């Protein structure tokens, strides 16, 4: 029980546990893909759907339209529609894009979701105030990313 509590607390703080790859340790290949799962745990597509659609989580829908999310109002147009992503992209590619899209698409407008430093004028979330710590918590946790990747893989034409 005690051990579990500690693990949960460490996950919340965005730190590495035995299986979790820390943001600074993610290995991108030359095309920006990430071969190894960030958690060693399979992604949960249902949870990933929630991360994708929820404003306080990934908020991916603010930039991407997805036909399979017809129940979610207001899909953005800043990024490409992702309704066929599961047909076109592998888990490794998607993991790399969601962790840090700039490794796949140079200079991409898509935020880097698994990164903690290297920002210009970082703030404390949406408060507009200075951050409390040097390193910021990543926008998404390792498991959030695995879950979103699992969700993206379900986005297929048929």
């Amino acid at each position: 029980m005690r051990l579990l509590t500690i693990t949960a607390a460490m996950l919340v703080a965005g730190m590495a546990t035995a299986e979790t790859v820390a943001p600074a340790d993610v290995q991108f290949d030359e095309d920006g893909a990430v071969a190894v799962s960030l958690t060693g745990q399979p992604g949960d597509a249902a949870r990933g759907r929630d991360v994708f659609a929820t404003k306080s989580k990934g908020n991916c829908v603010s930039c991407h339209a997805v036909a399979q999310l017809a129940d979610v109002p207001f899909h953005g147009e800043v990024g490409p529609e992702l309704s066929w992503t599961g047909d076109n992209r592998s888990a490794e590619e998607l993991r790399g894009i969601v962790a840090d899209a700039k490794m796949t698409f140079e200079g991409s407008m898509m935020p880097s979701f698994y990164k903690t430093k290297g920002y210009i004028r970082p703030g404390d979330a949406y408060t507009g105030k200075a951050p409390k710590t040097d390193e910021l918590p990543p926008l998404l946790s390792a498991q959030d990313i695995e879950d979103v990747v699992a969700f993206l893989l379900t986005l297929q034409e048929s």
Partner: protein
Amino acid sequence: LSAPLAMAGGADDDTMVINDETEMVTKTAAPAHLDGAVDEVISGWHFRSDETQSLQLDDFDNPGMIFVDQAMDVWNTAEGSEGKACADCHNDPAETMVGVKATYPKWNEEAGEVRTVQMQVNDCRVNRMGAEAWKYDAGKAVSMEAMISLHSRGMPMSVAIDGPAAAMWEKGKEMYYTRTGQLELSCANCHEDNYGNYIRADHLSQGQINGFPVYRLKNAKLNGVHSRFKGCVRDTRAETYSPGSEDFIALELYVASRSNGLSVESPSVRN
């Protein structure tokens, strides 16, 4: 495949005529200094719904006019140790304030600085009236700016960017293109690369400021330029700057220059 998910983007083709008489320039060739970054500058009005747009077409419907009327009362009221009102020195603003808004922010030779309209007003309050400075972008300051701006309505924005203002302008330009905050987004990412696109439910405009101060339906009051900048910077998960700060003055100068050629619309109406 299925019904379109995203709403149709782009600027609309409506024309803006205020009070059935004043034709406004809401789209025009971009000023030379934009150098191909965008070909055309477009008022934020073109990206709003028909209902919101119509509120700006008639002064009786424009909720911003209430604040203009309030500022007119203040204009005529003596304040401070000198017992003077704005009107004592500037008479009728419909004569003396014509064209002011179109050229601000502006280099002030005597003070050796770039000044916004609100800074100029506060200079008169403090140094000529012996009154307290108004808080930046707060109630009276922004209402007075709207009243002064109204007397330039329909005139083309023509902010000078050369000479002694050039250094501030360069600083503002650099800010405009710097990707700030944890989302690493610049003004240009949203307002240059993506105007016309929806970002969630928001239809992105070019982020022009020819309509400021603007009455926003969202908070039911007049909003100053720096307050809007603050909101946009905060939305990149960055540490913002303060209204009235040198950073925001520089950014205002630069963004105002991007509006050069568009009609002054203040007070405009947005959601």
